């Protein structure tokens, strides 16, 4: 019988939720990482290791590691600092793993890499010289100005290729392990003046289809977008959604045209519209959208979902999971058709990742 493991990063540590292959009954363990705020926890399937990017207000940033599904943990920040004293590393925001390379995106913007399973870290890149970098290199824009690396998307077939989101600037692709970069924002919409043709977009979330690596989806500040050429160009697919704003998204593991998103009100609240929780699904690459709310609260549910807080598994009938800013975890075991609340009182949730273990 297989095991399904959810990693939940929260403001008060990392939690592990576990079920069998049916994904109906769940147990909860945690909090781990000594209650440090965990911004992103991910599972490295090649080694069975959990990594959790965390930043303590007292003790700074570190990446925590567990090789036994959360039973024991260590942490390291060796090398996780800028040599340039004018650059402050205030937070480790996002993680990705690919072929033994663990990468962590940080604020102010930079990407550090570990090739020894998280023992030590070294600076891979700050995307220096890219259009817009003068903005994030301006001390006035340094954190808490929130100009960090907010997302990393790896290529399972090519560890040298990955995409990075610079918050408020846009998406960039490298094909040489981070040495050189290309902005990947053509066709995106921005409702504000921009200083550069290629950047100035507020990319919230980038998702790549497992079924077709050229198919990508993007939720940004002003709309949903689809790419059919691995991010080289984008087409807006917002029509049919209740709002153009949101953070969380997930792609179907076997069907390139099926994709999930959770629209939010774009104002200060950034919660689901009208207090009625819903996930929206397209099965035709964004030509049409369907609201799915079966099993989700339909009154007084003023809940938000952050950019790393939705994930899908790779089962034949895929399961999907999202965690809320108010500590609930919802799961679907039937390809998104219906949902159940599987944890109710966790701390505010930053991230959700899932692994199926044989």
């Amino acid at each position, binding site marked *: 019988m297989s095991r399904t493991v959810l990693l939940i990063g929260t403001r008060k540590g990392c939690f592990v939720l576990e079920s069998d292959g049916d994904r109906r009954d769940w147990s909860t363990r945690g909090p781990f990482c*000594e209650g440090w705020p965990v911004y992103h926890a991910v599972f490295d399937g090649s080694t069975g290791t959990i990594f959790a990017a965390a930043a303590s207000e*007292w003790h700074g940033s570190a990446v925590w590691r567990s090789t036994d599904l959360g039973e024991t943990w260590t942490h390291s920040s*060796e090398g996780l600092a800028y040599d340039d004293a004018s650059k402050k590393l205030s937070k480790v925001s996002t993680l990705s793993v690919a072929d033994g390379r663990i990468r962590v995106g940080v604020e102010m913007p930079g990407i550090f890499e570990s090739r020894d399973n998280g023992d030590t870290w070294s600076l891979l890149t700050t995307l220096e010289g890219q259009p817009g970098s003068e903005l994030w290199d301006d001390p006035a824009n340094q954190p808490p100005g929130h100009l960090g690396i907010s997302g990393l998307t790896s290529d399972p077939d090519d560890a040298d290729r990955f995409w990075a989101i610079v918050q408020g600037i846009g998406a960039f692709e490298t094909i040489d392990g981070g040495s050189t970069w290309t902005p990947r924002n053509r066709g995106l919409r921005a409702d504000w003046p921009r200083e550069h043709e290629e950047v100035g977009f507020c990319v919230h979330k980038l998702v790549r289809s497992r079924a077709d690596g050229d198919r990508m989806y993007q939720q940004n500040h002003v709309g949903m977008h689809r790419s059919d050429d691995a991010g080289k160009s984008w087409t807006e697919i917002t029509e049919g959604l209740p709002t153009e704003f949101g953070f969380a998204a997930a792609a179907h593991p076997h069907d390139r045209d099926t994709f999930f998103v959770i629209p939010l009100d774009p104002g200060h609240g950034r919660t689901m519209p009208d207090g009625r929780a819903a996930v929206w699904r397209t099965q035709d690459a964004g030509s049409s959208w369907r609201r799915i709310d079966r099993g989700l609260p339909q009154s007084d549910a003023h809940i938000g979902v952050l950019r790393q807080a939705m994930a899908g598994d790779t089962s034949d009938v895929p399961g999907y999971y999202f965690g809320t800013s108010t500590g609930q975890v919802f799961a679907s075991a039937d390809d998104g058709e219906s949902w159940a609340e599987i944890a109710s009182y966790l701390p505010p949730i930053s991230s959700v990742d899932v692994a199926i273990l044989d």
Partner: protein
Amino acid sequence: MADVHLPTTLMPLFTGLPRRLDLDAETVDDAIGKLDAQWPGLRDRLCEPGPTIRMHIHVYVDGERSQLETPLEARSRVDVIAAISGG
């Protein structure tokens, strides 16, 4: 020997780290260096690059708020405090 008291938030991070210990050190920085030699990585939990003491870590030597360069006397009491930092 300085009488060094550490915050409880550090204990779970480093195996065998006691809440208080005696250290032969000339400055606060020297004391942290000796702790880091025995428990690698501990300096990063108290200091940020510069180096300076982290914003929400306060160090008192004989009751006075201190910095890394503050000298220690033979019988100094050093209190390292994880300051109030939100709920």
